[in-house]
């Protein structure tokens, strides 16, 4: 299993370096999603299958889609023939190659350990849920308040109201 860990680590570090050094925001996001997928494989190898699924669904799925929508709204790097550029294989061949390697690693790791429940060392979602809703119940409630504050804050910040100036700053 160790070799799978090292492959996933190498892909994660490489794609993170690529993500923070790209000029085009969409390319950087592509590499960042790949980095999150590699970290998710690491989570699976660290006997946390539930967290691996959450990483793919919430991080790579939801949060990165938010980023992509904002990049789309701001029209960063607008050029005439964007479509032609995107269809250029040079842009997506490395991320998709590395993602393919990750897929092979995941398949090999799955076939090595058999089914998920047979794996002795795993910390299963049941344990996590029991711990989450008994020991850390207060934390769950605080997280709920935080999420509500986030929703209200994001709504307030993104609402297009007229420019408000403080009365002391108004020009006489």
């Amino acid at each position, binding site marked *: *299993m*160790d070799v799978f*860990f090292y492959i996933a*680590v190498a892909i*994660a*570090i490489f794609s*993170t*370096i690529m*993500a*923070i050094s790209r000029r085009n*925001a969409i390319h*950087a*996001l592509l590499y*960042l999603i790949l*980095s*999150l997928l590699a*970290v998710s494989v*690491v*989570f699976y*190898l*660290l*006997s*946390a299958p*539930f*967290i691996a699924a*959450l990483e793919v669904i*919430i*991080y790579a799925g*939801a*949060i990165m889609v*938010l*980023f992509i929508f*904002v*990049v789309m*709204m*701001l029209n*960063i790097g607008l050029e005439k023939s964007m479509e032609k550029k995107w269809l250029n294989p040079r842009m997506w061949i490395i991320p998709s190659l590395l993602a393919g390697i990750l897929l092979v690693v995941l398949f090999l790791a799955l076939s090595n*350990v058999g089914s998920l429940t047979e*794996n002795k*060392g795993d*910390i299963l979602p049941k*344990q*996590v849920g*029991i*711990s*989450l809703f008994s*020991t*850390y119940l207060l*934390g769950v409630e605080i*997280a709920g308040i*935080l*999420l509500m*504050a*986030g*929703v209200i*804050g*994001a709504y307030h*910040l*993104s609402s*297009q109201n007229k420019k408000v100036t403080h009365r002391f700053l108004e020009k006489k």
Partner: protein
Amino acid sequence: MLTIPIETQILFAGILFFLGLIGLLVRRNMIFMLMSIEIMLNSAGLVFIIAGNHWKQPDGQVMFIFILTVAAVEVAIGLALILQVYHHYKTLDADAVNKLRDQNSK
């Protein structure tokens, strides 16, 4: 099932954290700064998972779920702020937003 020492695993998380820190310090584009913060939060969660795996306790995964919540809220607020900044300044450069700076001390 992994026979890798915990030091190596934490070293990996540390490398990811410092890559995020470097990205945060080097890039001036606000979208990239927010992405670097995501990388750093993710590596912090990775340390929790490593520790939870080491002691075979579910607490590390519970902490990761909390970090995930914080990251989601932070991204929502941060992107809303970035949209507002872009509407006001027509740029994403973090150095352009300097209204609070003391203009006398250049």
